[in-house]
Each structure stands twice: as structure tokens, then as C-alpha cells.
């Protein structure tokens, strides 16, 4: 009975959504307002203006950089949320399920992980640094970075990771995302420009491009390092188990 009512309500909602979807302009047509209004400028001048061959990177770091600052703040908030609920891991008081598990991890897994992780980290760095030219960017790389930490923890145990990545450094790295934006954004502010402006007119034109690249790189690295550390920290905080 209850289920029936829910299904009926949800169905009504579906009809509402579908009626909206049907009235939208046909998907994939270049005449769509979504395609003809702002996008042409991005596609035609984006590389010049934003300084990235990958237009998406140009948008997320330059045209809509403020959004991305919000985005990195959201993950920081999420980490703070997890910490608020569960608290940090503490080597003296906590272990992880992995440590407590009696199943001996097989040699093959250990070897493969040990071999692969350096490459994974290298790949992550490539994605972070090469975001302007190819698919990927700060956050994607960061996620892979975080995943490599997770892989290490799952194979070699909780205490190793906590020891290798001390809390002090992680605390600093976690805030790297917003911090990167702050550093890059404030430079423009000091030159009398708007926040997050990367082109500094007072500098010789030859160096303008270089400075912009540098600033964008700071942001990318900030997002990557910050994102990766946060994912690792969230994982550690959730994984820990209180010692009796």
C-alpha cells in the first residue's frame, strides 16, 4: 500500500520531468541556444584567452575559476565533516580493519602494488601537470593520487600510511586547494585587478604568458595535492577502528 503510493507519486514526478524534457530543444543540434550563445567565444578564443588547449581546463580554471574554488572548498568541507563526525585517526588509539584482519595478504598483491604504485603516482602527476593540454587536470590526478594511498593502505596496513604521511603535513596539504587559488588570485588583486585575474598588464608582454602558466600550475598542483590528501584522509578517518 505504502509502496504503491510512493510509486504513484514518483510516477507523477516522472511525467512532470518528461514533459519538460520533451519540450527542450532537440539534443545534439548545433542550433541549440546552449550551443550558440556563449560557447562560440570559448571555442574560438578560449585557447588564447584562457591559456589552455583543453577548453574545459580553461573554463574551470579561468572563465569559471570561482566555481572551482568553491568546488575545492566543498571537498575540504567534506573532509571537515568527516572529521567532525568521526574524528582524526590516532595511531595510539586506533587500528584499521585491514590490520585486524587475520587473512595474510598474498605476496602477489603486495608485489604488484609495490611495483605499480610508483607508476600510478607518476601517472597522477602527469594528469595534474598536463591538464591544460589533454583530458584530465588537478582533481582527476588528485583522485588517482588518493587512490594510490588507499591501495597502499589496504595492502601494507594502516599504521604504515599514518607513519609515512604524518598528520602535520597532511593538515597543510589538505588546505592546498583553496590556498592555491588564494595565492594565484590575490596576485591580481594586488595589481589592482579583479580577483583571479592571471594576466598582469604591468608585466612585460613576453612574461605575461609565463606568469599565467605559472599561476594556473599553482592552482592545478594545489587542487591535485589537496584533493589527493583529502581523499586519503577521509579514507583513513573512516577506516580506523578504536582499540580496546
Amino acid at each position, binding site marked *: 500500500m505504502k509502496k504503491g503510493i510512493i510509486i504513484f507519486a514518483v510516477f507523477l514526478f516522472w511525467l512532470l520531468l518528461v514533459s519538460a524534457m520533451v519540450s527542450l530543444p532537440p539534443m545534439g543540434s548545433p542550433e541549440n541556444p546552449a550551443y550558440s550563445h556563449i560557447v562560440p567565444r570559448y571555442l574560438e578564443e578560449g585557447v588564447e584567452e584562457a591559456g589552455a588547449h583543453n577548453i574545459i581546463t580553461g573554463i574551470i580554471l579561468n572563465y569559471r575559476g570561482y566555481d572551482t574554488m568553491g568546488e575545492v572548498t566543498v571537498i575540504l568541507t567534506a573532509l571537515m565533516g568527516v572529521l567532525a563526525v568521526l574524528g582524526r585517526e590516532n595511531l595510539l588509539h586506533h587500528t584499521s*580493519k585491514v590490520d585486524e584482519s587475520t587473512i595474510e595478504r598474498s605476496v602477489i598483491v603486495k608485489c604488484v602494488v609495490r611495483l605499480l604504485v610508483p607508476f600510478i603516482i607518476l601517472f597522477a602527476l602527469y594528469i595534474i601537470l598536463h591538464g591544460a593540454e589533454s*583530458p584530465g587536470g588537478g582533481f*582527476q590526478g588528485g*583522485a588517482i593520487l588518493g*587512490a594510490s594511498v588507499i591501495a597502499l593502505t589496504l595492502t601494507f596496513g594502516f599504521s604504515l600510511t599514518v607513519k609515512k604521511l604524518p598528520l602535520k603535513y597532511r593538515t597543510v596539504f589538505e588546505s592546498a586547494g583553496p590556498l592555491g587559488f588564494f595565492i594565484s588570485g590575490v596576485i591580481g588583486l594586488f595589481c589592482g585587478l579583479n580577483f583571479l585575474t592571471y594576466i598582469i598588464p604591468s608585466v612585460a608582454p613576453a612574461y605575461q604568458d609565463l606568469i599565467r602558466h605559472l599561476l594556473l600550475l599553482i592552482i592545478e598542483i594545489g587542487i591535485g595535492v589537496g584533493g589527493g590528501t583529502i581523499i586519503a584522509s*577521509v*579514507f583513513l578517518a573512516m577506516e580506523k577502528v578504536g582499540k580496546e
Partner: protein
Amino acid sequence: MLRSLDVLLLIFLLVTAIGVVCTKDLLGAAIIFSAYSFTMAIVWQQLGAPDLALTEAAVGAGVTTVLFLIAISRTVRREDE
């Protein structure tokens, strides 16, 4: 616009979504959810969004699934508990 592969992928998406809903075993549901995310990543790749496909594969199918798995390991495995 629509290619048969796309239609197939989209239908598979629906199937996995319903699979997530109907599976009583949470671990199984999490795995199916991972498959769902992966399919989504492929759909996006088909739509010309490799950036997103990469992100979804790393975050949606990777990190999110791991988080689900931890949560399940720390709590319950059966849906009705």
C-alpha cells in the same frame, strides 16, 4: 545522433540502476553501483567528454565505491538489518 551502442549503454544504465535498487545484499549493490558508474563514464566518453569520463571512472567508480565498501564493512551487509 543516437547510435545503437549509445542506446544499448543507456538501457544498460537503467538495468544497473534497477539492479542497485533491487539487490538486498549491500555489498552486491555497491559493486553494481560501481558498474553503473563505469557505464556512465563510457556514456560520457561517447558524448565527447573524456575529461568527465576520466573523473567519473576515478571518483564515481573508484573512490565512491571504496567509501561505500568501507562503510559496509564497518556497518551492516544485509539491507534489512
